[in-house]
């Protein structure tokens, strides 16, 4: 049977305009990659938002898969943005194939 290893998958909801700050943090944590998934609207304590690309209110999900220690380092680095910029972060364990890639 095929071999899998366990990694952390981290998902950060961030403003598209500030996506670069998140991916820079990912690179600083020496994680090998990331992938961007679009989102179109949402609601939170600050109320309702909608993707309005003309005004630049868009958000995105930044996904990244990494070993636990790097994932925690990333979470640490992103923590202040979660508070100041209204980002949201969640993470969980996943099994991946060819774990040496992550």
């Amino acid at each position, binding site marked *: 049977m095929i071999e899998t290893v366990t990694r952390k998958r981290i998902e950060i909801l961030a403003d598209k*305009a500030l996506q670069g700050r998140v991916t820079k943090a990912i690179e600083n944590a020496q994680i090998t990659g990331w992938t961007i998934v679009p989102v179109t609207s949402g609601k939170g304590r600050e*109320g309702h938002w909608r993707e309005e*690309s003309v*005004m630049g*209110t868009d958000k995105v999900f930044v996904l990244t898969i990494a070993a636990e220690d790097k994932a925690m380092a990333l979470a640490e680095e992103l923590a*202040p943005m979660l508070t100041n910029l209204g980002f949201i972060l969640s993470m969980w364990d996943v099994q991946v194939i060819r774990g040496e890639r992550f």
Partner: protein
Amino acid sequence: MFETAIQTFSSPVVLFFVLGLLAAFARSDLAIPEPIAKAMSLYLMAAIGIKGGVAVAKSGIDGTVLSALAAGIGAGFVLPLFAYAVLKTFGKLDRINSGAVAAHYGSISVVTFVTAVEILTGQSREPGGYMVAVMAAMEAPAILAGLMLARGVGSKDASVGGTQSTGEMMHEVFTNSSIVLLLGAFVIGMIGGADAFEPVSPFFEAGFKGVLCLFLLDMGLIAARRMMDSRSITWRLVVIAIFLPVVNGLVGTALGIGISLDSGSAATLGVLCASASYIAVPAAMRLALPEADPGIYLTMSLSITFPFNVLINIGLISAFAAYLAGVMP
């Protein structure tokens, strides 16, 4: 005045804006797909830029153009100071949000400009083509002024936004997509001149007003939905979002007449001063001042000031310019 109102309200452009407002208030699911809205805004920037560039290529740059440019840039730096003071005292906003909102009111709204040009042209008072250059020149100064106000000039700020260097900030402001496209198309228009643009004019000129109709339909939808969702807007901010365009409009118009612009161009300068950005500046703020609340600056500029300008204030400013031009011939 009354005639102007009639004219305003029989313009398809304005009627589509009203349709958008009404549809959103009636909670219709009507919506323009996001990529289309974005593409229409890019199209409008490119078309306006080209038109202005071709006009300036034809007319050349003379004293009038230079004094209009100077007036516009000056207003871009000064108006945010006044706005900031009003927002911080009467508006009760904190420093960061006051600076962000001030940047919006000091800068300009391209679509308000275009709507004013439509309406003035309908009154046979088409402003000079160089007013596009004035508009383009007015986009950035207020952003810089607003950012300085928000960050406290000279003070080292520990906030997240503040970790960005001034160089990075300037880069982000001047490479903002709307500014690049507007200025780029302007330069293209100047290089090519009228002859080169004849083949593309069916696309950029003939189609312009129709695209504007659909874009304003969308702006009506978004403005009304944003107003209904808004949580951060107080009555004080509503008052300011009406008060600033009225005052800035009068000041800008008087300035225009004062530097001897024709009444159409002076009214246009007034409209530029009165208008608040909701495309270029919000995008720049999201990057350079991410702690500021878009629920405040976008709701004020897009949901209150923009409809007020389109439906009422352009008419007022136009009448005021005609009056002033008559008094001081």
